[in-house]
């Protein structure tokens, strides 16, 4: 039992650090590593098995403008919060959909497609 707890701790430390996501127009966003890992693309970028520059610097550039990257980060945080194994509360999808301004929807779709979220 004590072993389990320790392992969780050591795993948790790595999951707990922050990674930086930068947009093409120079904004940067700090998110938890576990949050970034929701995106398949970012997860691979940051994977320790790879020697990508992103993994070493803990920084992922996304070539979209800040408004789009912000929404992506927002979605990932939203998903991390509601999709966690512990949370059984109902998710109101509209709560998030309402926060996407329609004018970024197309760009966001392309970003989401690329980032696999």
């Amino acid at each position, binding site marked *: 039992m004590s072993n389990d707890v320790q392992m969780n701790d050591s795993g948790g430390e790595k999951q707990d650090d922050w990674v930086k996501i930068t947009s093409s127009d120079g904004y940067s966003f700090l998110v938890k590593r576990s949050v970034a890992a929701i995106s398949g693309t970012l997860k691979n970028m940051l994977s320790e098995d790879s020697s990508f520059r992103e993994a070493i610097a803990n920084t992922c550039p996304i070539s979209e403008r800040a408004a789009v990257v912000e929404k992506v980060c927002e979605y990932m945080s939203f998903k991390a919060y509601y999709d966690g194994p512990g949370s059984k509360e109902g998710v109101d999808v509209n709560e998030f959909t309402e926060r996407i301004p329609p004018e970024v929807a197309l760009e966001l779709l392309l970003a*989401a497609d690329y980032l696999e979220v």
Partner: protein
Amino acid sequence: MSRRGNNVRGPTSALTEFLRESGINPATIARRVATRNQPENQPQNQSVAGPSNLGDNVEDVPEEEQPDENTPQASTRTRRGRGRNTGYASDELDEPAEESPVKQQKSAKGRATAAAKAKAKKKAKDDGEYEGSSEDEYRAMSKNLWSVGGNGSPKPPAGSFETCARCEKQFTVTKYTMAANPPPGYLCHHCAKASGADPFKKPAVPRKRVNAAEKRNVVSYQERRLPSLATMCIELITRYIDDVEALGDIGAVNMDEIAKALSKNRGLTPQNAHLFYDVLNKKLRFYDATNLTPDALMTLASLNPNLTHLHLDYCGRLTSPVLLAFSTSMPQLTSLTLLGPFLVRAEAWIEFFKAMPGLRVFKITQSPRFNLECMQTLADNCKDIGELSLREIGLMDNEFVDPLCSLPSLRVLDLACPGIGMDEDGWMKIMGKHGSTLETLDASKHEGFTDHVLEESVRENARVLFELKLDECLSLTDEGVARFFSNWAYPISALKDEDHDMDVDSDPVEVSLISLEPFTPNPPLRVLSLARNQALSSAALTAAIVHSAQTLAWLSVNGLRSASSEALAQLKTAKELRYLDAGWCRELDDFVMKDVVTACTKLNEIKVWGCSRVRGVGWGVKRTIKVHGIEPSGGM
């Protein structure tokens, strides 16, 4: 046993039912185990084996009847009694009423031990554990039943003499001695073995239960409580589709990207398809039009009247009226590519071709109703056609040759995977007509595409061919293809001098005529596929590489299983190679791959499915190459 306490009974097998009817239950068996040393109790307990063998053995072994008199079961007993009173066992068997119990008992006798075991096992499963006390009783019992002879007496002690029930020789009883099956008596070692049973077989050890914690946690499906961001965006776009301004300005390049993203989620719907419509649109491509209804497809035609190029993948709902709407609403259309228009009827194709004489590119895949008449109308009306692709057309046969030959000279011809296909002469005619202009040829799965077609008509006619796909052309042989590739660069007449085994019946005048023309050989191929031609091997591969090494960029030799590693190593001379599919080339190994990836610096995608000698180690390249199909535990 615990089940017997309550009154709930599930469905039982015939055997279980029989055992229950006969009064055999764990309690009686346990009692029998406890008292089996007392001989006077034995016959009473031997209720299974005793009566069951009676029908078979009544003639051979009369003394065997002895224990039956003590059989306690009333129901069987009366029948038996009657049977014995007739004095002849076969009479008893003939009685239909008797038949079923006898049969049942027969099967029961054979499986008596198995039954006990199975019952024990079932019990144990039901209880959820194997270490119940009942389990021990059952297993002891089953052993006991196995070794007890048909006459019900316990097995004689090891070391004593017995007469074998089959060969009637005397033998010494050991702990491995088995009871005869059918009883009575015991078998000597030879007879036991000859009967197919293994005397040394150990009783089956119960499987150990896997701890719940040790069990792998297999996620069979993932619950998606939150839709993906892409799905949300598609939903949003669909909602605001009428307010195009709100969606912002998007360039043409992005349009295609959006079309792809939508298709990947199968998100293209009649509502959001409007995003891609524009009166000025010249080209439109949908990657997945599954959700577009016939009405939506008609809307597509009327909202994009100036389209010249239309490409629809998965257009399963494209019906005959839609095709006619295409011809009336989009008069400029010159290029039509459809994947899966299987609802379109022959009459609609004919109407369409009549209305669209300006068609230049016509490519369809999977249209089972496209018949000879459609082909004929296409040939009669569309005189500008340059690219024709009729893939997976079920009705394509030799009759298609004539209309195909009446077409103007084609640049692209793809007739892959037909239902029936053309014969050799048909292909000779087609190549004679179109060979000199063909740039791309796909004759996959045509049995009529033979060595002869290659050597005679392709070699003679093809002058600008750069893409050749001959997947699964089962008539091709290794020698034929090798000869074709090694001679392709030389004029026919030169070949005639060299090659004595060529046909001798062509007249010399023709030869001299050909040799008089300035000879321009076909340039080396850029795309070559010889996949799934199992007859092809090293010679064909080597000749093909030698011929096309300079320019070959895309190569599939999937399924050339006998191609040697030396031949495969020749791939390193193809410096332009970008894509290689070498699946199921069993001789391919890491050493060859190392040479190939080192030499072919432009190679960026490799498929090595089924190459068990390729383990992906020691290639020593730093470039990014997409490699598919390396087995993680591939044996050397």
